[in-house]
């Protein structure tokens, strides 16, 4: 259980997180979504006490993270930025972290096998690929067998097999009754693993809803209609709360009516239809819509003259 109350953090005059409140419940995977630079990593650092909030508070399992006597048994964290000394082997890295809590060596051995780093365990972590680094990070997060997992972009740099492994791992962790909080900037990834979503943009909460609700909202109720009598059809359909957008070639996009309502209206007015298709907006599109105004850095197309 993670509870944030009016959490804010500024660095100088730049606000990274602003008045964020949410509760992350155990037993499910909660996705933490937002464009790059939206404050996801800052929020995770605040949860772990690495940064102090400018105002507000956040607790893990009922207490600020700092006050736990065995923090690694409460929260296992994988941060986005590398948190490993490049000159130390994976084994010694895990061992040093384990020793702070009195976690036995055999747990270190167990995890090295579990994340598949046995062959490179004695190699210096500086030589690891991104994917191996992520696996090492996951192993450190699981050291204390924590009740809460906090993972910042865990699939970053993993190959398809690794991504599959992470998805199953997250689900099994949640099924054990643990709290699993995973950030990503990819909606499609979250749709596959998460049950619930916290969406932020520019450090503010945009949405806090279940994945099912998100999918339902995202689909909206846009219907594409093609008719040789498009102009006539538009006049028939137009009403308060109904939007009709004319596209090329006798094509209309209708919002606010279901496909059957449109079909019936057309039949009642003897209008011929060539196509009647309910549109599924992609989740990625819906996510982009939701965060469009909140993206910090927009890509601009076209050439710049200097």
């Amino acid at each position, binding site marked *: 259980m993670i509870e944030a109350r009016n959490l804010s953090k500024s660095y100088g005059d730049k606000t990274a997180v602003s008045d964020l409140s949410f509760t992350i419940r155990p037993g499910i995977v909660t996705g933490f979504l937002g464009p790059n630079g939206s404050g996801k990593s800052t929020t995770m650092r605040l949860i772990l006490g690495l940064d102090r909030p400018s105002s507000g508070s956040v607790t893990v399992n009922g207490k600020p993270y700092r006050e736990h006597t065995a923090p690694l048994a409460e929260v296992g964290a994988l941060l986005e930025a590398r948190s490993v000394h490049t*000159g130390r082997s994976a084994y010694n890295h895990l061992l040093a972290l384990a020793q702070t809590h009195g976690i036995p060596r055999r747990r270190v051995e167990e995890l090295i096998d579990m994340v598949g780093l046995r062959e490179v365990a004695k190699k210096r972590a500086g030589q690891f690929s991104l994917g191996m680094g992520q696996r090492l990070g996951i192993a450190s997060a699981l050291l204390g067998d924590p009740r809460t997992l906090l993972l910042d972009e865990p699939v970053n740099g993993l190959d398809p097999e690794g991504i599959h492994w992470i998805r199953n791992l997250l689900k099994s962790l949640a099924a054990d009754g643990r709290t699993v909080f995973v950030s990503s900037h990819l909606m499609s990834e979250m749709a596959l693993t998460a049950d619930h979503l916290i969406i932020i943009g520019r450090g503010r909460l945009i949405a806090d809803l279940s994945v099912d609700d998100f999918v339902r909202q995202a689909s909206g109720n846009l219907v594409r209609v093609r008719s040789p009598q498009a102009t006539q059809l538009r006049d028939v359909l137009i009403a308060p709360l109904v939007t009709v957008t004319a596209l090329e070639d006798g094509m209309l996009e209708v919002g606010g009516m279901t496909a059957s309502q449109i079909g019936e209206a057309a039949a009642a007015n003897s209008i011929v239809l060539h196509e009647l298709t309910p549109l599924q907006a992609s989740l990625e599109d819906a996510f982009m819509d939701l965060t469009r105004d909140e993206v910090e850095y927009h890509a601009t197309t076209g050439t710049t003259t200097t």
Partner: protein
Amino acid sequence: MSAVATQTPQPPLRVTQARVALSEWTKLWSLRSTRWSLFVTLLLTIGLPLLVATILSSHWGQMSPGEQASHHPLEVALVGVAIGELAIGVLGVLVISGEYSTGMIRATMTAVPKRLPVLWAKAGVFGAVTFALTLPAVLIAFFASQAILARHDILQISLSSPGATRVVIGGALYLTVTGVFALALGAIVRNTAGGIASFVGILFVIPPLMNVLPASWNNAISPYLPINAGTEIFTLNPGSGNLSTWAGFGLYCGYTAALLAVAAVLIARRDT
């Protein structure tokens, strides 16, 4: 892939100062930079006195009695300390700045979110390791250089002669405190280059700069500079105007404690 839960039941987990110290011990020895820096320190602390003793011994006959009298056997035995302290200082800075430069500090502070136990453990473990290695080193340097100088009666001194034991052990004590002094600087600056620069600046660059001040100022300030105060512990007779052995070394320890206190305040308050 089976679930994540341990197959083995775990004892109650808890962060303690002793466990953090064990963790820092593991961290210290699992890096090549540590092993190299300590090796170089020992090499300089032992090797340099042997080299100097050999040169002195072979040139002894060509020296005037006045020049012969200017050489002291304890100075020969501890000539390596003045250079070994550079290697120890660099390592002291690295012990903590290396964590900041690689990002390891985030893992460390996540495991020990109260943070200060990490600083105490680093300073304690590094100080203990430095003393445990440099004490035998200065003793070896002493006995070996004495053996090389055995033919020259006026260069013979026993550990039981007044102050001799204190001077020899003092070499190791000085290296130990210097290592912790550098570690505290590294914790304050959080950056390897900056940490080493401030260490070298404070210890080696500032003292000669004092010569541009009026002599009365220079004489009033210089004895209190860290390096001048600290080295009294392995100087047989403090020069006139200098602090006494224990006042000087006490002041050096005081500087180190003050730096550690500043580091503690900053580590506890800063974002990591």
